[in-house]
């Protein structure tokens, strides 16, 4: 049982359960499933004077977004619970052979844990590559999600499920950006910065 649960949960189990979050939130409180709004609520909650904030961040974040921040806190707890009980998934061993081969040819040596240790550690934050991946990457996620009015949950799941054409355009954009990084930037940048001893 433990080994069954600690392996990759199949898509046909995880996907439908994620999909059920949409009607659950709607029925409990008329809420729409969209996680990136929390980034805005968290910014609005930063205790600095209103004059230091753009008007975009001046609103009653606790009243409007309190529920969503509780939801996000649940996600943090769920992440902890899943790891504390079943351990860190061995994703590198579970992904396809082709992806493993591609990543090692790009110079990624560690395939354990959730993310390559070459890119995701406190030490790597001090390197140009670590800064690009974690800090620039995070920044673009936060900037783009608000510009597009939603992220994977708000557009790819809530929006597509409600047959919203703007959400389909946003999802095409998500893939355009992701394919660009994966197929144009990474093949040049990763070997140079990981293998070249820079």
């Amino acid at each position, binding site marked *: 049982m433990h080994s069954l649960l600690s392996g990759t949960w199949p898509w046909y189990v995880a996907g439908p359960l994620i*999909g059920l979050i949409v009607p659950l939130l709607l029925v409990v409180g008329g809420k729409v499933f969209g996680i990136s709004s929390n980034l805005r609520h968290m910014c609005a909650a930063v205790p600095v004077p209103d004059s230091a904030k753009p008007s975009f961040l001046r609103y009653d974040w606790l009243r409007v977004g309190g529920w969503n921040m509780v939801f996000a806190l649940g996600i943090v707890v769920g992440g902890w619970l899943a790891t504390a009980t079943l351990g860190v998934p061995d994703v590198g061993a579970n992904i396809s052979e082709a992806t493993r081969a591609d990543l090692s040819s790009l110079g990624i040596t560690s395939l354990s844990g959730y993310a390559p240790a070459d890119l995701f550690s406190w030490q790597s934050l001090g390197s140009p590559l670590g800064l690009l991946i974690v800090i620039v990457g*995070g920044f673009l996620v936060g900037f783009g999600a608000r510009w597009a009015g939603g992220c994977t949950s708000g557009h790819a799941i809530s929006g597509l499920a409600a047959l919203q054409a703007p959400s389909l355009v946003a999802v095409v954009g998500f893939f355009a950006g992701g394919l660009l990084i994966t197929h144009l930037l990474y093949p040049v940048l990763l070997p140079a910065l990981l293998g070249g001893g820079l």
Partner: protein
Amino acid sequence: MSVAAEVLDYECVDTEQVPPALRDSALQGASSGPAMLAYFAAGILLGVLFVRSEVASWFRIQEMFRFQSLHMYGIIGSAVVVAGLSLVIIRRLGVRTLHGEPIELTPKQWGAGQVRGARYWMGGSVFGLGWALIGACPGPMFALIGSGLGVMAAGLLAAMAGTWSYGVVQRYLPH
């Protein structure tokens, strides 16, 4: 500030999916203790799913953008199908919120800008660049922090900085 900017400012804040006249009462009802417990429980379930299905992993995102496995497409696709069927059932049966309001989805608006849908494809592409770099969208970022990948907290702070910066330059961007 122009009227258009005023409207933009409040767009995309969480809005109750009920008829506009009932939003205030829905917000009251949906902020009760039991409702909050339900959101928290739903969040826990989602966090567990993000980790155990490996959606929260940079490796899986790379696999997806390389089209080397069905896994991520199966998850997103089946989530959309189940959510979509649920919405059909909600509409057909006239399901109401637990507090009694009819459920009425707010449609996503095409912006008023000169380029149709600019915010969706431009903002979406910027999001996609970030998604492939950090290998996590906002939900998985929260799950990864919980699961002990501490450096993701720096990524979350960077994402907040991105959101804050968007708020500063919003009026200059096409929407």
